[in-house]
């Protein structure tokens, strides 16, 4: 099968790339935890890529590696094709300003003793070269308008505790924008917000990526929001990417058994109440995957209803299943028969022509 051509790559030029990235933590003598293993993907200008997984799957570690907060144990990170090396201090600092993060908890990511204005003035002075008081004021006002906190004068003088969760998250986004980044890493940016205001914050990020040509990584455990918000979705399990593809096709026709489990667990307002009580998703029972290094086989095998001998002894590689999609599963023919059949037909077609 030919090379994978990610959907996100069709939307804009490659900005930030993870190549065979791994991160290992030593958790006890002789025991290694492979939080991230062999993860490769690209972030493209004006594209939103979602990284979906449960807690402990390594998705936040990926963000920390990309942001330069942690050093990779193996693999490389490239910005505009150039490998980032923390040892080259100046280049590394430039990298940090081009790749900005928005964190999950807007209650702890803003300094409670400083006003909103202070949070924005510093990056505006340091990274935008604003000198005079008037310049600083003009730029901070503009930033608040960008994240739709209006009237800006009203918000500049507020302390974080005077704002709602959604407003705080908007301030955090404004602060990230203050640096004029090219990549925005949003680590569960709405999971601590009320359901009713999540959409507004996600729409804001989607809008900003078009206006500022941002490449966005959206990290979440909510695969339903990935469907709506991201162009491409990567599903991560126990440190590995197990499936990737365009968000819509991936959620509507999942290939990997873990993606199927995730989708089955998502609340569904269109599903009648009786479904819950019937114990339908009992297949879900099982412990979160182990990321301990050195364990053989597919990491999802202990929870997988389709696992066989090979799954327990050999880790499946992430292989393209269509031009846009890839999955790491030995048993796709059983796990996603309709998809596998369609692929076979496509393959035959390709051979014939």
């Amino acid at each position, binding site marked *: 099968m030919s090379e994978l051509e990610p959907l996100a790559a069709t939307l804009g030029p490659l900005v930030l790339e993870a190549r065979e990235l791994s991160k290992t933590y030593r958790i006890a003598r002789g025991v290694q935890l492979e939080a991230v293993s062999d993860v490769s993907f690209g972030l493209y200008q004006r594209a939103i890529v979602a990284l979906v997984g*449960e807690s402990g799957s390594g998705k936040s570690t990926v963000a920390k590696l990309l942001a330069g907060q942690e050093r990779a144990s193996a693999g490389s990170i490239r910005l505009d094709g150039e490998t980032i090396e923390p040892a080259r201090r100046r280049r590394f600092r430039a990298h940090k300003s081009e790749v900005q993060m928005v964190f999950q908890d807007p209650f702890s990511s803003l300094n409670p003793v400083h006003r909103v204005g202070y949070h924005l003035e510093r990056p505006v002075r340091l990274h935008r070269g604003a000198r005079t008081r008037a310049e600083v004021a003009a730029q901070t006002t503009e930033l608040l308008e960008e994240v739709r906190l209006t009237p800006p004068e009203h918000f500049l003088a507020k302390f974080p505790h005077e704002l709602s969760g959604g407003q705080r998250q908007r301030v955090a986004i404004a602060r990230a924008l203050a640096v004029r980044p090219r990549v925005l890493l949003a680590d569960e940016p709405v999971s601590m917000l009320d359901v009713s205001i999540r959409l507004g914050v996600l729409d804001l990020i989607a809008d900003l990526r078009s206006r500022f040509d941002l490449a966005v990584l959206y990290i979440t455990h909510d695969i339903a929001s990935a469907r709506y918000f991201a162009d491409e979705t990567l599903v991560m399990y126990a440190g590995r990417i197990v499936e990737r593809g365009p968000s819509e096709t991936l959620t509507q026709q999942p290939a990997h058994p873990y993606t199927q489990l995730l989708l089955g667990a998502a609340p569904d307002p269109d599903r009648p109440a009786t479904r819950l009580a019937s114990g339908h998703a009992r297949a879900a029972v099982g412990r979160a995957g182990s990321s301990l290094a050195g364990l053989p086989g597919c990491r999802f095998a202990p929870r997988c209803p389709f696992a066989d001998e090979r799954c327990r002894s050999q880790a499946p590689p992430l292989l393209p299943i269509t031009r846009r999609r890839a999955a790491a599963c030995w048993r796709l023919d059983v796990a996603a028969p309709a998809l596998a059949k369609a692929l076979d037909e496509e393959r035959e077609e390709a051979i014939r022509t």
Partner: protein
Amino acid sequence: MSAAATVNQPAEGAAGESPVAPVLEIEDLSITYRSRGGDVNAVRHVDLALRPGEVVGLAGESGSGKSTLALGAVRLLRPPAVITSGRVTYRGRRIGEGGFDVLAANAHELRRLRWREISIVFQSAMNALNPVLRIRDQLGDVIDAHMPLRREAKRARLESLLDLVGIPRERLRSYPHELSGGMRQRVMIAMALAVEPEVVIMDEPTTALDVVVQREILEQVAELRKELGFAMLFITHDLSLLLELADRIMILYAGQLAELGSALAIRNATAHPYTAGLLDSFPSVRGPRRALSGIPGSPPDMRELPRGCPFTPRCSFARAACSEVTMKPLTVGEGHVSTCPFVGADELAQARATRREGSPR
């Protein structure tokens, strides 16, 4: 329709009255947090009757008063929170013979009421376990205090409790830190069920958990409810969960009732613009992509509520008369009430359908 015309009729008597005597009845409950900056009326004139064996979902944004309402109903609030009006009765028609006037109960009576009759699972339950005690001892404490058993019988009870929530029996010897978040939450649920209460209040029990774990726990709770027959008040800000889990749903906004009805009616005959906004806030993984609107603005500042309906500043159906509205439950269907006098279910459904025809996202 003229500005003052009302489409919904005043409700007669208590909302959704039925022949079955409620096990927990909240009438006209108001709770205020006193502070130097002025009083905050966190809960205002709320009625809710929980019938035996039913699941009532309580939904609203943070600050809508849903937790305050539940905690107030079992007298778990401390100053500066003050109950300013209302009546809460447990088995109200049998006061004296196992029934309680909760708000008038003394410390001794409250002790009998809590755990044995009404128990609570808190949102932060994962951190509510004592880190230096084994699971066995913490579960055992509840039994010792409320349903003393002989040693053998108690052991058997503890083991059956863990079976009930799907944790291996050998975990009785574990300390909390040796369990995963989901397991700890299950221990808390086991603890709440330890002495077989009639009513279980769940305050955002799965908010801190992963989707897959959340689903497992909710399924377990639904099964346990069927098996043991307790009534449940389930509090969450995630309406999509309630549509699957609850028999009836109550929507609170700014401490007041917005809408109350069966889960089906809330979903299919939505009668309050705020409920409609909540329903259009979460994406679905299945079915066609539908346009989502969310709710503009932020939850209200409870110290400076607008006159009339508090949802007015965020409401797309707002009109001048909204500031004159007195918030009363109005009947819109059988056992279905809304406090919005202007917008009917048909008008709302139409508006939402038109919006959905727009481009997705």
